């Protein structure tokens, strides 16, 4: 899987940027396309400088039209290119809903394999950055109902690279979600060279035997901090699983952990009702109910639109590390 010669410390935005750069460098079929990816270099500067190096055909500033950003990418993919399309903020993805759900995810199926759609759709999601109602949303639950659509939400720089490479190499459409608060907040070592992390594989970030916490994105880092503090201060042993892929979901890793700890807490920033946690809860209830010693809990964003612009409104929406700690403690002691 990995041919590495060393590592570099990067933040998440740098990891995405470096991976896209390598993809453009190594495969002439790849191109990046979206709003303001050209001279501006994307609103988070992910593609800064790409235009000069790869030219306007491969660093394609599109008109302001999300449905066709994805739709045109679908046509490119059906005709042999490897487009990496960007939706500037996940809040803007809804005009492209049909192209993602009705077209990209069904291309292979409806043609019985005659056509394929090797397409990556990258989009920054999530809040905690004063993004207000229209620059903060989590969209994973709105897409994870869709068979054939892979969804990844990496949390670390090394995973950003490995899963983006996997998404680009994948012969089917992948929705690649980047939590925007982690962009510059999270740093870590990233191996050199091309490597992939398989889509559909979770990672156990911290081992423990008293409680399983399943999370993804920004919340993974908070959950780890909370679990580490609980271990240091109170000798509580919480296991933390970073889902990494929303769909396909790594059922085995979750079940193996739950059967060991006998307790499950799911944490995600997205709204609680019908969120990813609902599916995990149902799956664990179906498969491992009698292995549980406590009710399954979900610590999630409240069921209001994410999220108010005013600081107290945003803070009320986001899940604090302190709240995570408290809920973990309660569950371990249940």
């Amino acid at each position, binding site marked *: 899987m990995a041919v590495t010669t060393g590592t570099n410390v990067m933040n998440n935005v740098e990891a995405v940027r470096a991976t896209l750069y390598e993809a453009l460098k190594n495969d002439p079929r790849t191109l990046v396309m979206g709003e303001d990816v050209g001279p501006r270099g994307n609103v988070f500067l992910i593609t800064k400088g790409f235009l000069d190096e790869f030219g306007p055909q491969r660093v394609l500033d599109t*008109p302001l039209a999300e449905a066709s950003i994805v*739709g045109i990418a679908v046509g*490119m993919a*059906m005709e042999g290119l490897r487009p990496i399309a960007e939706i500037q903020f996940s809040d803007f993805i809804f005009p492209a809903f*049909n192209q993602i759900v*009705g077209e990209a995810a069904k291309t292979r*199926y409806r*043609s*019985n394999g*005659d056509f394929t759609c090797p397409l990556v759709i990258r989009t920054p999601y999530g809040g905690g950055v004063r993004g207000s109602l229209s620059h903060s949303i989590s969209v994973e639950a709105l897409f994870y109902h869709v068979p054939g659509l892979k969804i990844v939400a990496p949390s670390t720089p090394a995973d950003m690279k490995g899963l983006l490479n996997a998404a680009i190499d994948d012969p089917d459409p992948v929705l690649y979600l980047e939590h925007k608060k982690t962009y510059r907040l999270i740093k870590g070592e990233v191996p050199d060279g091309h490597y992939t992390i398989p889509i559909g594989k979770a990672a156990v970030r911290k081992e423990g035997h008293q409680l399983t916490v399943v999370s993804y994105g920004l919340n993974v880092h908070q959950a780890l901090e909370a679990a580490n503090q609980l271990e240091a201060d109170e000798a509580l042993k919480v296991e933390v699983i970073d889902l990494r892929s929303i769909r396909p979901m790594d059922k085995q890793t979750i079940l193996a952990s739950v059967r060991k700890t006998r307790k499950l807490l799911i944490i995600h920033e997205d709204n609680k009702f019908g969120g990813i946690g609902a599916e995990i809860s149902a799956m664990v209830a179906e498969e491992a109910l009698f292995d549980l010693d406590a009710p399954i809990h979900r610590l999630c964003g409240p069921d209001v639109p994410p999220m108010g612009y005013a600081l107290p409104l945003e803070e009320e929406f986001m899940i604090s590390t302190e709240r995570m700690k408290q809920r973990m403690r309660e569950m371990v002691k249940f």
Partner: protein
Amino acid sequence: MAKAPSAQAHAPAPAVAASHHELSKEQLRAIFRSMLLQRTVDNRGFQLNRQGKIPFAAGSEGHEAVQAGAGMAFQRGRDLLVPYYRDVGLCMACGFPTIEVFYSLFARAKDNGGGRQFPSHLTKKSAGIFSFSSIIAGHMAHAVGAAYALKYRNERDRAVICTFGEGATSEGEWHEAMNFAGLHRLPIVFLCENNQWAISTPQEKQMAVKDVAIKASGYGMEGVIIDGFDPIAVYDAVAAAREKAASGGGPTLIEAKCYRFLSHTTDDDDRTYRSKEEVESHRKDDPVPRFERWLVEHGVVSTVEVEALKKDVLREVNECTDAAEAEPYPQASELYTNLVEGAWEPWQ
């Protein structure tokens, strides 16, 4: 070839525009056979539905001239066709085998789409025919993306032909696709098969203008209006636009004005929203007998040859009907295949 915005409906012009085409007698006969085949396949689809043998069919009666003419301009092995659901005739005219149309009608295992989609939703990558869904205008951006790929790879003398009805032009994705194609001067021909009806909704309820073609000016491309009952006019316009597209001249929007003689599909009843008189008034210009008369008058075919052609087409359609009907359905287990490469979720 009239240019927008001069309105030119087919009705007052029953003659065939044969002024400047360069079609051989053989090609003219091929166009005629294609039109006969389309109509016979259409009728057969409706018959099979009324016999209870298939649950659904969508006809394209009234589109024969558009589809046979455009099919003749399509360069097999080079061009790409991104059609919509009323294009069975066009697909056949571009090389889609008749027998496979019947695999689709009967939803047999041998259907190239595995019997998953409605009939008329054909796919055949090896013939350059794109898979598409029922979502109106959803395929427009795919056509544009494919045209971008041709230009991106600098593949000369190739073009995309993308078709749609006038109803599709109301969709936002239609606008987005046209805009992008004009912006990048992509090698694509947009062919609107304006049959004046989107199920029960007439053109007057779709748009404030009489001609779809005038919308082209908003995208920096040429708009052309043609008589969609005249296969030679269609061929002329599509071949010219195709040539322009394939040689770097950018896209063209062609509006072929035709008429939908049948109900929307076998599940529709057009008597609930349009008059018999209206349909009959267009039947007088029915493109199939009209072209037949022209061919005979111009000595391209004799009446004896016409009868032989009709017999031959009916034989082909009968043989395909029987052969497809005798084929098995896909296995139920096929429901689970070809969602993604390999297995979908590992626990299923």
